[in-house]
């Protein structure tokens, strides 16, 4: 599928975990001719058109208000970053191929065929400059979920071999090794053992039957391994029958982010199968935004039937455990503000959970201006953080986030998404910023009242 291989090594120095910048970019994968790429893109755009997407694509008024909601447009004033423009090719294909008047569009040539130049240009618009944060979906007077359409448009781009170099490599590695960072089951077990020793915590691994299956993201395993210990501490304190599984531990889903439905499905099924195997009642997702979207809201649809277990984000689990008294925390004497991961709060509906947790942790929780559902994205979601060439744009966008955080004047900044966290870390380094992003879960783990249960 790809012409680049084996030239990627982890960049262990960077504040975000990623591969080193490619010496030669290969933003086209495979050796397809232009016509074939166009056909692939079009065919795989077309697969996504159903009643919901069709009504969205037919309903746009071209009012342009989505531009005012998009951080990329707000910060650059570049009209190409108008969200609905990002799906222009997708929309055009719909009108030509499947829409109610497609016959006339084709007959009269009303919508220009998509060209290879278009597709190449749109790679930048669909990947580098969209974090699928969904802010635009909230401003749209027609109620069109533009972010959802971007995700679908990526399917066509992937099949046409037009994914940005790094994102494609990461996704490919995830498909091949089960982890975008190449973390093998053995390596995961090693790091879990290390953390068990380091933090003196019992970490059940590969238990045959358990009520709760806990999973992690590679970003945490590699960069924030203390998360493994924190997860264990909390689940142990709550008295859960739980386990990690080496046959299903990776929560990230780069198949989804890069636009390959098959890889997306494979990644989700791995977790689902593991949970089913141990008879789990609950699968607790780690601090990862897109993992929540992938499994909580799309997992069952990959599975083809309802899941036989509950899927919870760790913040939801924590809120539930604290609210029911399963675990208890000491109050920290600090003011805290919270960065909402888009896929968990705005698009996932779990906005309140983190606030419940924070209110247990501090008497001085400070909501950011526009906090909660209208939160500005970290700028790194949707796979953008992996794309090196997008760094200048991403940093530019991060300014909005910095203003938002600074206005709270809070002592601590936490979030519940490792992807946001590495995006913050990277931007912090870039700007020499004061705030360091912390983890909500780790903060809970650090302040557990041991005998409180």
């Amino acid at each position, binding site marked *: 599928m790809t012409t680049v291989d084996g030239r990627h090594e982890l960049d262990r120095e960077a504040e975000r975990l990623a591969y080193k910048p490619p010496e030669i970019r290969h933003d086209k994968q495979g050796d397809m001719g232009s016509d074939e790429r166009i*056909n*692939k893109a079009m065919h795989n755009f077309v*697969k996504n*058109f159903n009643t919901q997407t069709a009504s969205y694509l037919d309903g746009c008024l071209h009012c342009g208000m989505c531009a005012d909601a998009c951080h990329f447009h707000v910060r650059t004033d570049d009209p190409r970053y108008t969200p609905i423009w990002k799906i222009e090719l997708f929309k055009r294909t719909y009108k030509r*191929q499947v*829409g*109610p008047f497609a*016959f006339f569009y084709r007959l009269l040539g009303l919508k220009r065929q998509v060209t290879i130049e278009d597709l190449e240009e749109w790679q930048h618009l669909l990947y580098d400059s969209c974090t699928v944060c969904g802010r635009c979906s909230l401003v749209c007077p027609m109620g069109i979920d533009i972010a959802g359409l971007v995700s679908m448009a990526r399917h066509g781009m992937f099949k046409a071999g037009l994914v940005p170099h790094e994102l494609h490599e990461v996704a490919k590695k995830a498909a091949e090794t089960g982890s975008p960072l190449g973390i093998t089951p053995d390596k995961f077990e090693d790091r879990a053992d290390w953390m068990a020793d380091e933090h003196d915590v019992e970490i059940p691994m590969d238990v045959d039957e358990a009520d709760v299956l806990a999973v992690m993201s590679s970003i945490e395993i590699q960069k924030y391994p203390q998360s493994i210990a924190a997860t264990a501490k909390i689940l142990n304190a709550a008295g859960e029958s739980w386990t990690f599984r080496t046959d299903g531990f990776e929560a990230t889903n780069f198949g989804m982010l890069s636009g390959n439905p098959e890889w997306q499905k494979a990644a989700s099924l791995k977790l689902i199968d593991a949970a089913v195997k141990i008879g789990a009642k609950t699968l607790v997702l780690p601090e990862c935004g897109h993992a929540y979207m992938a499994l909580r809201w799309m997992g069952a649809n990959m599975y083809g039937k309802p899941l036989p277990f509950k899927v919870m984000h760790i913040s939801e689990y924590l809120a539930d455990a604290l609210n029911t008294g399963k675990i208890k925390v000491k109050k920290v004497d600090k003011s805290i503000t919270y960065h909402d991961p888009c896929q968990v709060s705005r698009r996932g509906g779990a906005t309140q959970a983190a606030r419940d947790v924070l209110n247990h942790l501090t008497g001085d929780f400070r909501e950011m201006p526009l906090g909660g559902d209208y939160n500005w994205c970290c700028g790194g979601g949707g796979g953008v953080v992996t794309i090196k060439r997008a760094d200048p744009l991403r940093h530019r966008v991060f300014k909005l986030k910095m203003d938002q955080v600074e206005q709270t004047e809070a002592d601590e900044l936490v979030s519940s998404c490792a992807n946001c966290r590495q995006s913050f870390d990277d931007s912090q380094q870039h700007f020499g910023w004061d705030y360091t992003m912390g983890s909500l879960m780790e903060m809970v783990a650090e302040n557990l009242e041991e005998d409180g249960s």
Partner: protein
Amino acid sequence: MKRTPTVGEVLRAKGVSRRGFLKYCATTASILALPPSMIPRIAEAIENARRPSVIWLSFQECTGCTESLTRSASPTVEGLIFDTISLDYHHTLQAAAGDQAEAARHAAMVENDGGYLVLVDGSIPTGNPGFSTIAGISNVDMLKETVAGAAAVVAIGSCAAFGGIPGANPNPTGAVSVMDLVTDKPVINVPGCPPIPTVMTAVLAHFLTFGAIPDLDKHGRPMTFFGTTIHDRCYRRPFYEQGKFANTFDDEGAKAGWCLYKLGCKGPTTYNACATAKWNSGTSFPIEAGHPCLGCSEPNFWDAGGFYEPLSTGNFDSGEKLAGAAVAGVALGAVAAAAGRRRQAKFTKEG
């Protein structure tokens, strides 16, 4: 050819004073809707105008137009105009009958060749010439013969102007209007069912005063009287703008004299002078009497929708065809969706 006396001479012979003449001119200006500043010019023109010869032909008509014209008993100021014209043939009004009458017509035609006026009321049947004849002459033939030497033709009433009732659907006699048949002479239409008497006399007064036909609109009607709509000059217009309408003929709105639009008033599309000239010696006009305007001075008013249907009502068929359109929409939508799905299936297979 004997010299016809001027109007001034006629009036003086009748013992009308200069004051009376000025009063007459003022009234004429009023009839012609000319500004009072025109009175001196009118006076001068009328003073020296000569009596034109007029031949009146009646075809498929009800004599309502003649009734309207003669409603004001002589001597009136309007009546004076008829004193100043030479009505040489009018088979309702003239004393002569039969051959004598026809002889009078021919005499007038010969004597005033190229200078006389022909007034026509009633429409002309073309289906069968036998449908309407006078003295054994079909209407078409008599019209053509009489008009040949005329200066102008005045079609009095909606039948002569546009076909009227005889010409209404299904038009059994094949009735047509004067202007359908007369194409080589100026035709002035004075429609109305009947036309306003002063308007009829005003057309004659204009011809008399200025020796020319007045400015006409696209339907051949004098702009002076048919230049604005009933609605434009209706005293109930403010109620229209305020949205105050009579909904039935006996509701409070009707009693309060509100706008009759909802009861089918055709005032907005009807060009006539009723709202200002009024009827029955200036007493009132239909809307003032509480009835919507029927639009009688407009072409084909009999066939232009119901009298009591509001103007803005569309001429829709029943809902059945709309339902048919809906069914067609469902079918087209289903076909389009099926085509879309087929394309999706094909593309999915092709990958």
